[in-house]
């Protein structure tokens, strides 16, 4: 049952997002956004992503991104996210937005290979002008299910060690601020930083904070 619920959550949330986006009043003429960032998020990570603005019941930003931590083996660890960012409420320049992500991530060391499905929900509230914004954010990154495949080193130490899908795996809430400023008509620089906290009474991460410096490149629709 837990597996089914997990998969449903993943499927429902099967869209990703740019981390820091300006939802100013001109959003309806935006076409797409390509973004890149570098920072610390459970490791020094490099992220690239792309998003498209679409009009459904509301203007949505549908995104996909990919990040890798630094190191000699660049593709042994990575995180991909698919998601959607939805404006929920607006009063003048104040915007409340929600972001829902589905996450797939991988991590491999000499001891274990982990494959993980997760999901993330984020609420951002901030002040958005046409060329800059500042906002506070709160989110929760849930590690829903993790598959472990142990190396011979681990098996030698403990022959009965078990490979397989492990549920539940854990999760972190996070809280921080983000800000961005357009330096040209299409290029926006942005920054995010905050702290993380493990779910329930779990032990916190070794380095319980995140920070990110990024660049967004926005394409606009031609208007008459």
């Amino acid at each position, binding site marked *: 049952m*837990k*597996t*089914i619920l997990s*998969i*449903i959550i993943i*499927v429902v949330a099967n869209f990703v997002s740019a981390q820091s986006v300006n939802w100013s009043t001109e959003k309806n003429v935006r076409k797409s956004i390509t973004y890149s960032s570098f920072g*610390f*998020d*459970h*490791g*020094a990570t490099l992220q690239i992503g792309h998003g498209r603005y679409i009009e459904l019941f509301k203007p949505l930003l549908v995104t996909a991104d990919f990040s890798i*931590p*630094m*190191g*000699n*083996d660049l593709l042994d*660890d990575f*995180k991909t996210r698919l998601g959607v960012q939805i404006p929920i409420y607006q009063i003048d320049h104040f915007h409340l937005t929600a972001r829902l992500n589905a996450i797939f*991530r991988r*991590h491999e*060391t*000499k*001891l*274990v290979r*982990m494959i*993980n499905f997760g999901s993330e929900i984020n609420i951002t509230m901030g002040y958005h002008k046409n060329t800059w914004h500042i906002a506070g954010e709160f989110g929760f*990154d849930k*590690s829903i299910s*993790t598959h*472990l495949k142990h190396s011979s*080193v*681990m098996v*030698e*130490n*403990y022959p*009965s*060690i*078990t490979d*397989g*899908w*492990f*549920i*539940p*795996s*854990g*999760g*972190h809430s996070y809280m921080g601020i983000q800000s961005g400023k357009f330096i040209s008509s299409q290029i926006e620089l942005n920054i995010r930083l905050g702290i993380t906290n*493990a*779910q*329930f*009474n*779990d*032990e916190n*991460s*070794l*380095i319980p904070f995140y920070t990110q410096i990024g660049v967004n490149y926005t394409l606009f629709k031609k208007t008459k």
Partner: protein
Amino acid sequence: MKFKILSLLAFTLLVLNSCKELSFESDGVLVPLTVMEDNSIPSITVNGVKLHSETYGDPSDPILIAIHGGPGADYRGMLNFKELANDKMYVVFYDQRGSGLSQRLDKDGYSEVQVYIDELHGVIQHYRQDSMQPVVLAGHSWGAMLATAYINQYPNEISGVILAEPGGFTWPQTETYFENSRKLELFSELTNDYVYQDQFITGSDHNTLDYKLALSTAGDVSTGDIGRVPYWRYGGICNITSIKLAIDNPDQMDFTENLKDHTSKVLFAYSEFNAAYGRDHANVVSSAYPNIELVEIKNCGHEIPHFGWNNFYPAIKDYLTQIL
């Protein structure tokens, strides 16, 4: 089209749901059972805590107690010491509380260094047949620090002590060693292997945190050793709490006050390949003892009792001949 998508989704759910779900918290799945869950594991009870413990040799011979590192490691990497049973020593191994296959405790169980000293005292009392039976302590890394903390409290109780690369006998010495041996470089594979796993697994229970601590050793942080030292089970909560204790209470980490009263010779070993240690650090740390025999163990790094045994053993045998 919609039917195809729904069919694919249903099939995916069916396949994934057929996979057996495991739990990090379950006993014996990712880490071995302890003495609390498996009565077949040899154990003793000291100060109300059940400890995994084994002995080799004649109980009436001089006792040698092997004290493992960590806090949170175990004695599996020190098992070479059992060879000393052939040299008329009664060799005693024990996993400290919260480590190896010994009983797990809540954080309060590791609230001060004194609990480890009292535990070692209890182990000695458990195996010592009378007050005339000589006792030798053999400690590695944190275990060598603990042996010294014990001698600092009981300077005349112990006939001899063998120390292999204790980080330090004061917090500044230990901090220096940590800084030299565990440099976290932001862009290195080692650093990211160390922290990336935190987004996959979180936990507060012993099974999960012991497993996570084992995974955090993927980067081989012990400098100078080519292979990996064997272990049974790390103690996650023991390790986290004890290191936090040391950082928050550096005054508890001064084990040097009474060492001048321990006039028996001490065998102090450092490794050839652990660049973070070396003769300079060995000189600084060992200087608290008045009577030191300093030896470099060739062809190994920090894990001297495991990888350096062939060169360590002759020095130990010679030392025991001198003091007993």
